[in-house]
């Protein structure tokens, strides 16, 4: 027996398929013995002169071989038993093989367990789990059989524990479910790889980086024996394929292809199926497919097999596989465009032989598949790869350059779907495109456009190089269905990113589902904000009522919302709307978890340890580096806004600083910095703003501006000069206000000219600012027109008076709270407040709600809102003045309650709600991912 094996080694393997077991046994023995130098052995076998080198070991081997033979016979028995589901005999065999193992170990005098045995264990385990899973079959079993099954379960579990490592190791290389031992498997795998190198599917193989290098080495070997050599080395399956397809291409029928296809697909996802191998096999099949529909069907499987290549949720798909996948998708589209009678559908299970209908078939052919799901998956993989790759490497940049590739695909898919009339799906695809574009300012967009046009040129070159394999194709089996490239391979971009966004977004608004629309809206807002169109962005945000609903959405949408808000805040700042900017940003900074809220890095919390699970989930949500919003800039802008609002505010309420706080964060920082014994030169953003604050509160606008100007994030702004100029003007204005608040009590009169000179402001502006302060009754003074002076009135309230005002305020708040409580309980009748609310809300999605602006959203609460509060608190008393009707009264209350509840109060609650939902939606996140994958 043994000699037969060794002699056969030199010849062709093909005749002795039945003798495989013996082969396996003997090889297994060899492996058990010469495992350490498996590599050299491989070379030897290849050279087919192993006989003499092992000469003197022969004697030993025959004894050993006997044991192995016995063992393999047992394995054989087990297999048979499995086939008939006979657990009783299986149990017997199992006991037997364990005994044999002892013998084998004794004979080989090594402590290494033969692979054959491990393989048997794995096989048993798999079969067992399969049997256990199949409840119906279990019920049908005879009692003895079922009993055996159970005891087998116990035994196997116990037994396998000893060999856990080996089993795992084996499972890691489950390249084939063929018989034979591991070593041989490896060989086959590599060889079959190199075989494919020879094959027309070269392109497909080339990028398979893991095997590439080995292939290079092997190629020389295998190249020498191309004639019979590679055929011999091929795995059985490939051989089969050869027999069917390679030898006589003309005889291939639809049926054979279909059968083979079903066969391959059936093993998908099973343990022990080589994922990459499966892709290759399927790719091979696409070439021999008989009808376009069949090719399409197989291509779909190829794509899903490619998705399977990366099994883990956190890792990403190898980039080359990703690229191939995109190419395959394009081919799919080619076919679909070319044969418009083919319908892709994932609802209806197509008839068995639907794909048999040839290219000339006129009726509709249904093929199972879901373009959108595939596309989304491709996008997800792209996103994940960017998450994983270190952004400071060249690889990251390279990866970013693949973006146009995806955009082409998405564009084509969308075009196709629109042509077919599936607008819902098209909207989903459009969203994917929007999400790649929304964060790009015009400059980046232009760069991308240029890149796309460039790559087109280089790709032309590449495709010429790609001609070669196509020539070779004639040598191998020719592709039966030749698919010309119908779909454009080059993305077309409109001149302007805004135009593109508008097109896509309007499609989504018309056809998308709720989530798609919400996301598109957020992207739209973000993009408007980037382009400095604050009012448009703000209106969109208010009209969509997103800030009311966002708590109920999934986390990635919430992140997008936060990003949009951050960008909106930056935009407001750039156009000089300080209060609005602060309103947008303060929310983000109130919890001190900006990084987490924007998904730009994991923030450590002192009080709350995260479980590894949570951390992993959070990592999965991270934004890729190129989409980040610069955190320094964001923090700087937030603090500067807070400074501009807070400094005059603090100056105005010196005696009662606690009462009105615009920005808690800012106040806290200020306290901390004031507590320092020595103040050094500013280092970080906070220090700078604090230094500026100190200067500003003394009225020294020049120093304040200089300190802020020295911050280095200003270079990130496009219109840096304008923004700084605006900032300078704002600082001057606020300095003037602060100065007046602080020092007005020291003056009796103050001339306008002096003030304009002091603060370097224009006369009209100074006049306007001071007039405003007078009207708002922030400043108790009036103009003396002929002398152009401010005359200050001495109307400071006495302490008693001030306190009694506070008391009345408290009283009115109390009354109001009572009314509220009543309304909440009863649902309101006489106070017509809830009614108004409802009316406001029935505009959902349509109306920019004027009054609601204040209620929902505190960004206009800065100056404006505070003035409302001021009248409420201070001298004005508008709501309670005589003649104010109930209508105005309840309307005012909206504004006022905001003020009383305080910025933080109102926000804290929403914030914590958001936070809460973030905590418990971690599971939802996972399921969402799954949804995308399915």
């Amino acid at each position, binding site marked *: 027996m043994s000699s037969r094996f060794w002699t056969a080694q030199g010849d062709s393997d093909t005749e002795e398929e039945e003798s495989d077991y013996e082969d396996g046994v003997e090889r297994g023995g060899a492996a058990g013995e010469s495992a350490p130098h498996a590599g050299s052995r491989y070379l030897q076998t290849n050279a087919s002169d192993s006989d003499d080198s092992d000469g003197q070991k022969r004697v030993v081997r025959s004894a050993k071989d006997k044991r192995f033979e016995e063992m393999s016979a047992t394995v054989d028995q087990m297999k048979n038993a499995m086939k008939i589901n006979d657990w009783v005999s299986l149990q017997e065999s199992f006991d037997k093989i364990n005994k044999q193992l002892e013998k084998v170990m004794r004979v080989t005098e090594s402590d290494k367990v033969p692979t054959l045995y491990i393989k048997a264990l794995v096989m048993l385990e798999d079969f067992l789990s399969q049997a256990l899973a199949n409840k119906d079959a279990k019920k049908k079993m005879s009692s003895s059989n079922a009993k055996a099954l159970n005891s087998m379960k116990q035994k196997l579990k116990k037994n396998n524990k000893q060999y856990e490592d080996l089993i795992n190791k084996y499972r890691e290389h489950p390249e084939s479910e063929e018989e034979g031992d591991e070593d041989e498997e490896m060989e086959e795998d590599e060889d079959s790889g190199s075989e494919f190198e020879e094959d027309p599917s070269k392109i497909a193989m080339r990028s398979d980086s893991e095997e590439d290098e080995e292939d290079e080495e092997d190629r020389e070997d295998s190249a020498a024996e191309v004639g019979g050599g590679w055929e011999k080395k091929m795995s059985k399956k490939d051989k089969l394929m050869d027999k069917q397809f390679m030898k006589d291409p003309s005889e291939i029928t639809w049926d054979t292809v279909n059968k083979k296809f079903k066969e391959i697909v059936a093993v998908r996802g099973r343990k022990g199926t080589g994922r990459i191998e499966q892709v290759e096999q399927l790719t091979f099949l696409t070439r021999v497919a008989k009808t376009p529909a069949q090719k399409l069907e197989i291509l779909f499987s190829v794509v899903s097999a490619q998705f399977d290549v990366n099994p883990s949720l956190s890792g990403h798909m190898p980039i080359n596989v990703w690229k191939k996948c995109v190419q395959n998708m394009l081919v799919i589209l080619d076919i679909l465009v070319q044969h418009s009678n083919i319908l892709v559908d994932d609802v209806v299970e197509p008839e068995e032989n639907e794909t048999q209908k040839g290219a000339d078939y006129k009726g509709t052919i249904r093929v199972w598949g879901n373009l959108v799901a595939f596309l989304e998956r491709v996008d997800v993989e792209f996103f994940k790869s960017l998450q994983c790759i270190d952004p400071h490497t060249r690889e990251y940049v390279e990866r970013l350059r693949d973006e146009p590739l995806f955009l082409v695909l998405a564009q084509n898919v969308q075009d196709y779907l629109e042509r077919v009339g599936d607008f819902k799906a098209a909207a989903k695809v459009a969203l994917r495109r929007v999400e790649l574009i929304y964060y790009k300012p015009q400059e980046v967009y232009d760069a991308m456009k240029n890149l796309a046009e460039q790559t087109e040129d280089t790709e032309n070159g590449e495709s010429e190089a790609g001609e070669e394999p196509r020539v070779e194709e004639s040598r191998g089996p020719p592709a039966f269905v030749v698919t010309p490239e119908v779909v454009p391979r080059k993305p077309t971009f409109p001149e302007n990113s805004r135009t593109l966004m508008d097109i896509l977004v309007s499609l989504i608004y018309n056809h998308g589902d709720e989530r798609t629309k919400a996301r598109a809206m957020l992207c739209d807002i973000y993009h408007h904000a980037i382009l400095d169109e604050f009012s448009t962005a703000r209106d969109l945000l208010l009209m969509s009522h997103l800030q009311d609903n966002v708590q109920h959405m999934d986390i990635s949408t919430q992140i997008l919302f936060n990003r949009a808000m951050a960008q909106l805040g930056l935009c407001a700042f750039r156009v000089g709307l300080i209060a609005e900017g602060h309103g947008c940003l303060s929310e983000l900074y109130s919890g001190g978890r900006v990084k987490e809220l924007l998904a730009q890095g994991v923030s450590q919390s002192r009080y709350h340890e995260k479980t590894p699970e949570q951390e992993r989930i959070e990592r999965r949500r991270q934004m890729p580096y190129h989409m980040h919003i610069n955190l320094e800039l964001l923090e700087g802008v937030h603090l500067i806004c807070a400074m501009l609002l807070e400094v005059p505010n603090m100056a105005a309420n010196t005696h009662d600083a606690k009462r009105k706080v615009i920005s808690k964060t800012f106040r806290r920082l200020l306290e901390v910095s004031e507590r320092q014994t020595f103040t050094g030169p500013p280092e970080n953003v906070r220090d700078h703003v604090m230094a500026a604050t100190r200067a500003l509160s003394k009225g020294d606008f020049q120093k304040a501006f200089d300190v802020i100007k020295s911050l280095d994030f200003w270079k990130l702004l496009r219109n840096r000069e304008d923004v700084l100029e605006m900032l300078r003007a704002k600082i001057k204005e606020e300095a003037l206000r602060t100065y007046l608040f602080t020092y007005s009590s020291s003056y009796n009169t103050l001339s306008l000219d002096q003030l304009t000179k002091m603060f370097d402001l224009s006369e009209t502006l100074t006049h306007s600012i001071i007039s405003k302060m007078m009207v708002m009754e922030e400043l108790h003074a009036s103009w003396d*027109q002929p002398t152009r002076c401010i005359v200050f009135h001495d109307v400071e309230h006495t302490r008693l008076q001030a306190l009694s*005002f506070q008391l009345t305020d408290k009283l009115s708040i109390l009354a109001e709270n009572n009314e509220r409580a009543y309304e909440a309980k009863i649902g309101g009748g006489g106070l017509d407040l809830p009614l108004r609310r409802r*009316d406001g809300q029935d505009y959902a999605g349509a109306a920019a709600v004027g009054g609601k602006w204040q209620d929902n959203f505190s960004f206009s609460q800065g100056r404006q809102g505070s003035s409302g509060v001021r009248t409420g608190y201070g001298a004005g008393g508008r709501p309670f003045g005589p003649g104010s009707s109930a209508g105005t009264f309840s309307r005012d209350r909206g504004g006022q309650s905001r003020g009383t509840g305080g910025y933080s109060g109102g926000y804290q609650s929403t914030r914590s709600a958001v936070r809460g939902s973030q905590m418990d939606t971690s599971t939802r996140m996972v399921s969402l991912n799954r949804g995308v994958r399915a």
Partner: protein
Amino acid sequence: MATHDLTPRIAPNLDRHLVFPLLEFLQERQLYPDEQILKAKIELLNKTNMVDYAMDIHKSLYRTEDVPQDMVERRAEVVARLKALEEAAAPLVSFLQNPNAVQELRADKQYNLQMLNDRYQIGTDQIEALYQYAKFQFECGNYSGAADYLYQYRALCTNSERSLSALWGKLAAEILMQNWDIAFEELNRLKEIIDSKSYASPLNQVQSRIWLMHWSLFIFFNHDNGRTHIIDLFNQDKYLNAIQTNAPHLLRYLATALIVNKRRRTQFKDFIKVIQQEQYAFKDPITEFLACVYVNYDFDGAQKKMRECEEVILNDPFLGKRVEEGSFSTVPLRDEFLENARLFIFETYCRIHQRIDMGVLSDKLNLNYEEAERWIVNLITTSKLDAKIDSKSGTIVMEPNHPNVYQQIIDHTKALSGRTYKLVNQLLEKAQTQAAR
């Protein structure tokens, strides 16, 4: 001249027939070349049935006696269709013209239908025909007939959608007949329906409201109490929202109404906020004037704007309505507006000043010195202004006006007892009803 003309923005929200008065006005003001307006008129008429009128215009536009063939054909077609509709609606029309028969109708719609069906063989088909006939009459320019028929139709119709469009038609007809009182009633009826009806999408409702507001402009600026009513309507939250969303140009009319109306100061502050918010969407001299006075306190700017406002008012078809008095015509709204605007400026100006030079003031008020003095004396005597004129130095001196602290505190707390009382009452009522149950 035409920069602030709103006609292009208003017209899309009006009925074809309602645009005519606007075009007539523009023609009169000669803001646009005559030819352009005549062409616009023909275009308007092309979709209506007023073919004869269109022919006349065509003749005057091209100064020919020839009329294009398609107009002639269209005329024949219109006449034929009129005949057909008349016949279809004849039974019902004759019934309605018989006063004895009409008396048999009762308030109960079902009964009426039944009765008509039984005794006059008038079924739903005939009623439907009446609607079509009325519509056709309207298209032909026979507004009074259309209004009558639509009124009758509404009494008989059971389809609420149809009834609504009949109401729109009635409103348009009444506006075109300049029956402002009736039109105002119809307007209120329509408003109620729009507010209470449930629309397929909120967008439709907003659109209806915007139409309503546009149509109402005709009524409000002609009706006696229109200027108060316009504030009542436009300043409602729902309507203000609609304006802000889709028709910010209507702010001009609301602003004007608010300026002219002295008693509506309470709503003023809110309105100023709205104007500020919508600044980017709509700007015209009238809103800018308000912004100057109340937001920026830029009195020189306000001065300039006031002059522009005058221009705008004269050229606005709604605001610039003329009243013929004997041989010369005046624009009453303009005078009122200017007077009030002046007052606004002066008021605010005084609020923040202690001493004002008369000369400067007369400049700011667009008056000469004498007039200014007279004007101010007038104000002082009617005790609208707490000030004295120092005629030696030529200044006005304001009396310092600081509200009494005690008064303030009383003001603050005065409302509290009322509110609490109300609350308690409500609670008691609720408790009683619950106890009763």
